[in-house]
């Protein structure tokens, strides 16, 4: 195994040969300048996926250490990072993790399995980068089609606003945002949570408490309801419409906008990292600016998840 650091040289398209080749240029002091080979977008996509595997360890004891070990080795070894066998193994281990406690795995674990499978297949294909980009577009597009389908046609309580009205009040992960943006006081929030507690079957309160929903909170719930549907539909269309109809910048813009806004609130950073890694998988090697934007977005989603921004803003507002 050839140990490397996460430098561009490590991911040169010529592998180790380029890194060891004599430098063609010298600097002002006469020392050889390192050869700067282009980083392949595909490698960055795979590396970000491996990092995502490490950031959110998953699965029972008999797959978790193996997934973590393979992910570490992939980051250290470009050969393993580009190994179809290694990605196939990851896909199998993710499938085992899903089957082990079916149906409790979250949806992004399924998407991770498909993505690892797609990477493995692309690494066996002649046009590896094109194959991966195509799989990435279809996977993201279809996942968002099903997400929109559930929200607009299959669920009885999403479009009428009930989902976000209740979730903003009862899910502790959204409590700070409900106060900061929705204008609820902490007392109102606590009273609402009490009022929304389940009673035993057949039980009924003589004087049921009413639920406080300031206009700002109703507006936030409506904006979240329609905003998420609009964003998801936009990503689905951008990914699935043929290239002449949707330019690359629109496609990536939609995905980045979705990740930049949704994961500010949604407590599922793992899904965000995966989508961003898959987005990089659609870039060609000349789109270096977009690649940097994706990596920055990956970091931003880390910060979203780790910094309780809404709570800090509330504390600052209270003085």
């Amino acid at each position: 195994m050839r140990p490397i650091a996460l430098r561009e040289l490590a991911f040169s398209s010529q592998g180790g040969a380029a890194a060891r080749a004599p430098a063609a240029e010298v600097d002002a002091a006469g020392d050889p300048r390192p050869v700067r080979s282009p980083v392949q977008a595909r490698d960055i996509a795979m590396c970000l996926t491996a990092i995502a595997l490490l950031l959110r360890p998953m699965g029972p004891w008999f797959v978790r250490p193996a997934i973590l070990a393979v992910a570490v080795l992939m980051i250290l070894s470009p050969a393993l990072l580009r190994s179809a066998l290694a990605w196939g193994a990851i896909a199998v281990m993710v499938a085992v993790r899903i089957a082990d406690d079916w149906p409790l795995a979250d949806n992004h674990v399924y998407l991770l399995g498909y993505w690892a499978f797609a990477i493995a297949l692309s690494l066996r294909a002649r046009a590896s980068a094109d194959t991966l980009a195509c799989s990435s577009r279809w996977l993201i597009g279809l996942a968002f089609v099903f997400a929109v389908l559930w929200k607009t046609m299959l669920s009885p309580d999403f479009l009428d606003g009930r989902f976000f009205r209740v979730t903003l009040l009862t899910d502790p992960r959204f409590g700070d945002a409900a106060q900061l943006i929705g204008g609820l006081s902490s007392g109102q929030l606590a009273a609402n949570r009490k009022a929304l507690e389940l009673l035993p079957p057949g039980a009924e309160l003589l004087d049921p408490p009413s639920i406080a929903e300031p206009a700002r909170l109703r507006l936030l719930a409506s904006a979240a309801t329609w905003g998420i549907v609009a964003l998801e539909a936009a990503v689905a269309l951008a990914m699935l419409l043929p290239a002449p109809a949707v330019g690359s910048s629109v496609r990536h813009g939609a995905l980045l906008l979705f990740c930049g806004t949704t994961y500010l609130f949604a407590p599922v950073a793992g899904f965000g990292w995966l989508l961003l890694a898959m987005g990089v998988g659609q870039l060609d090697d000349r789109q270096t600016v977009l690649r940097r934007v994706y990596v920055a977005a990956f970091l931003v989603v880390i910060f979203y998840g780790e910094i309780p921004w809404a709570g800090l803003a509330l504390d600052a507002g209270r003085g």
Partner: protein
Amino acid sequence: MKMLAPALLVAVASTQIALSRTFDLTAWKGGGFGMFSTLDHAGYRGVDIVVDAPDRSESLQVPASIELAVARAAACPADRMLRAVAEAVVARERRYQRPVSRVTLTFWRADFDRATLRPSERPVRTFVYDVP
């Protein structure tokens, strides 16, 4: 080759929709990408357990040892899942040398009023397991 993984996604997600319609699989689970689309999730679903024997009829709180089985059954209250819960309950009762001849499981979920948001618990399915 490039369409194999997307085809797998469509197959699993379509199956998830079918299971949600036939076995009440929650939209949030099963690979159908229905998360954050409905209140019908683990927080508002559950399984009540009643144990019967000649000298007892007792409602049980879900013990930690069978929490996982109950979570799976609440997410997808199919016969197989509910039977697994019932068998785990019987095994636990026998470990504590308590008599058990029947386990009755009631799968319920919460509905929220469209206007007032007031929740109500609605029994959806009852599963009776007679101990062999």
